[in-house]
């Protein structure tokens, strides 16, 4: 990052005024006060309870209690067929639902052994909708975090831009948020007419929105003072806790699954992975802003490279037959019936498949016993690892510092609690 983004020096530092250390520590006796930031709180994205022990304004210990949105993804997926799990995956990281769909579809395809047979157009579509979801993820995260710090305008600008993307996603698959667009073996249906022009125009306007937000926040004295130097995560922390994604990249750990273990057609695109240096809140903010710009780069290249073709693998054991055949031939109707009622028969085995989701390495560990329903469908949630470091990170911070730290970790209840 260039020097113009260095924090402006405060007036007290320029004038050489020394801040007194621990102003009132010896004189006033303080007792630790237990304070509950309770599961319903405006700054707790979704529901998290923090039982804090504070001395004055400083936090001496924080017990982060999650689980208030435990909706039993694993248990439900053991009773659903492989395809019926898709709606449950939408609701994991619900601000980037397509990325969860991509991760799960790729995991089942790895277990089926058909990863190389997915048609190219389907792979490009997955990349396109995935990157659109990544942009909505970062827009929501940064918009909500900025709102909690008082920058309400930024929230409205981000939401305005997010609405354009939601409308386009609705044209693609019929739902703004909970999409269930992908299927095992490809996509449910093709992109609509005029998709490329609409997406290009949205990207143009979104770049304008991001530029406006930059002018509002990047050199904003209040924003910088609240974010600089707070909540520093080190690279060693990331390795110990398994933190990946924008949080890890902000510490300098350049790990991005799209570059280190390219999947789909990511190796055909020219994009950079933004990496921070300090690992504080501002770095996490800046990494997300840069990632949005890189996602837009990927989208432009994908729109140029995508070619017409089939959008699903041509295997009658995996893909539903076309409706015209289902209604007119008995074989197709029986095939349709078996796939829907029994589920796709996935051979017995276990697989761990990982993709780069909005928060980091989203892993799916699937165990199949050969039937049409999973034996175990485990999600490795990236923000679970990031939230696990919060009790350590919050020690010594002020209560007001919890808001940006927690916000920029982007803990999404649906993914953390599953």
């Amino acid at each position, binding site marked *: 990052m260039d020097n113009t983004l260095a924090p402006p020096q405060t007036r007290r530092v320029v004038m050489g005024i020394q801040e007194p250390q621990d102003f009132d520590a010896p004189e006033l006796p303080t007792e630790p006060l237990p304070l509950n930031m309770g599961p319903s709180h405006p700054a707790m994205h979704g529901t998290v309870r923090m039982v804090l022990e504070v001395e004055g304004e400083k936090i001496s210990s924080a017990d982060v209690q999650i689980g208030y949105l435990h*909706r039993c993804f694993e*248990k439900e997926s053991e009773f659903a067929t492989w395809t019926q799990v898709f709606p449950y995956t939408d609701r994991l990281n619900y601000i980037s639902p397509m990325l969860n769909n991509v991760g799960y579809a790729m995991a089942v395809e790895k277990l089926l052994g058909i990863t190389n047979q997915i048609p190219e157009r389907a792979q490009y579509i997955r990349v396109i909708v995935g990157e659109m979801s990544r942009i909505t993820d970062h827009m929501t995260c940064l918009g909500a975090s900025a709102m909690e710090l008082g920058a309400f305008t930024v929230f409205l600008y981000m939401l305005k831009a997010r609405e354009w993307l939601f409308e386009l996603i609705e044209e693609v698959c019929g739902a703004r948020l909970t999409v269930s667009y992908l299927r095992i073996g490809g996509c449910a249906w093709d992109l609509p007419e005029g998709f490329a022009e609409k997406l290009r125009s949205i990207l143009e306007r979104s770049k304008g929105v991001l530029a406006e937000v930059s002018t509002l926040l990047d050199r904003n004295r209040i924003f910088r003072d609240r974010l600089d130097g707070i909540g520093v995560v080190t690279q060693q922390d990331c390795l110990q806790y398994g933190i990946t994604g924008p949080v890890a990249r902000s510490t300098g750990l350049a790990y991005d699954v799209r570059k280190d273990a390219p999947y789909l057609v990511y190796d055909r695109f020219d994009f950079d992975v933004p990496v921070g240096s300090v690992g504080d809140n501002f770095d996490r903010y800046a990494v997300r802003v840069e990632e949005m710009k890189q996602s837009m780069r990927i989208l432009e290249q994908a729109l140029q490279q995508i070619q017409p073709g089939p959008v699903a693998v041509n295997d009658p054991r995996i893909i539903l037959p076309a409706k015209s055949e289902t209604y007119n031939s008995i074989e197709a109707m029986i095939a349709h019936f078996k796939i829907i009622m029994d589920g796709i028969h996935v051979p017995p085995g276990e697989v761990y498949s990982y993709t780069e989701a909005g928060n980091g390495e989203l892993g799916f560990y699937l165990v199949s016993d050969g039937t049409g329903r999973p034996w175990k469908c485990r999600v490795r949630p990236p923000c679970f690892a990031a939230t696990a470091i919060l009790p350590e990170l919050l020690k010594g911070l002020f209560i007001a510092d919890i808001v940006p730290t927690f916000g920029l970790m982007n803990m999404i209840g649906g993914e953390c609690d599953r």
Partner: protein
Amino acid sequence: MGADFVTGKLADVVNWARKFSLFSYPFVTACCGMEYMSVAAPKYDIARFGAEFPRFSPRQADLMIIVGTITERQGPALRRIYDQMCEPKWVIAFGVCASTGGFYQNYSTMPGADQVVPVDVYIPGCPPRPEQVLDALVLLQERIQRGEGHSQVVLKAEALAKKKGGEYDVPAMSIKPRTDHLAALPSATKPTGGEG
């Protein structure tokens, strides 16, 4: 014309004022929160209906919008927040998870927020479109105008009972939470859960 006409008209005016100045407490838990944000955003703009300002303290709010899935763990917190609101208060169950539990039928999801709080308007949808939410708000406003919100009915019944010199016996169906089933659970003071 008499006192009844005046109080009737006064009640109408008061309800008119109430319905157009709802202070909402968004009890946001899950994905529906994203659609709630969209409803508050400039495109769908809940501010046109007077319900713009979320008051993040239940003491200052009169409309609790339960947005998203309620789990059993959330139950006591939700109940407590409902109790902290002042009368008259209304509740909207936003989304199918808050209405009936949605497609989550498992050991952790409460089958609808109305298991612990009385709900006035249910909005189905997963998540509901913002237009659905605005329609539900208009429906609620009509109910408020007619004085048929759950809390308004209870208040009226209490006032009537007091006028007749008695106490209004809140029926078991209404707002008191039941606790008889808690005897089956181990004591809440035990620090860790038991073995299966």
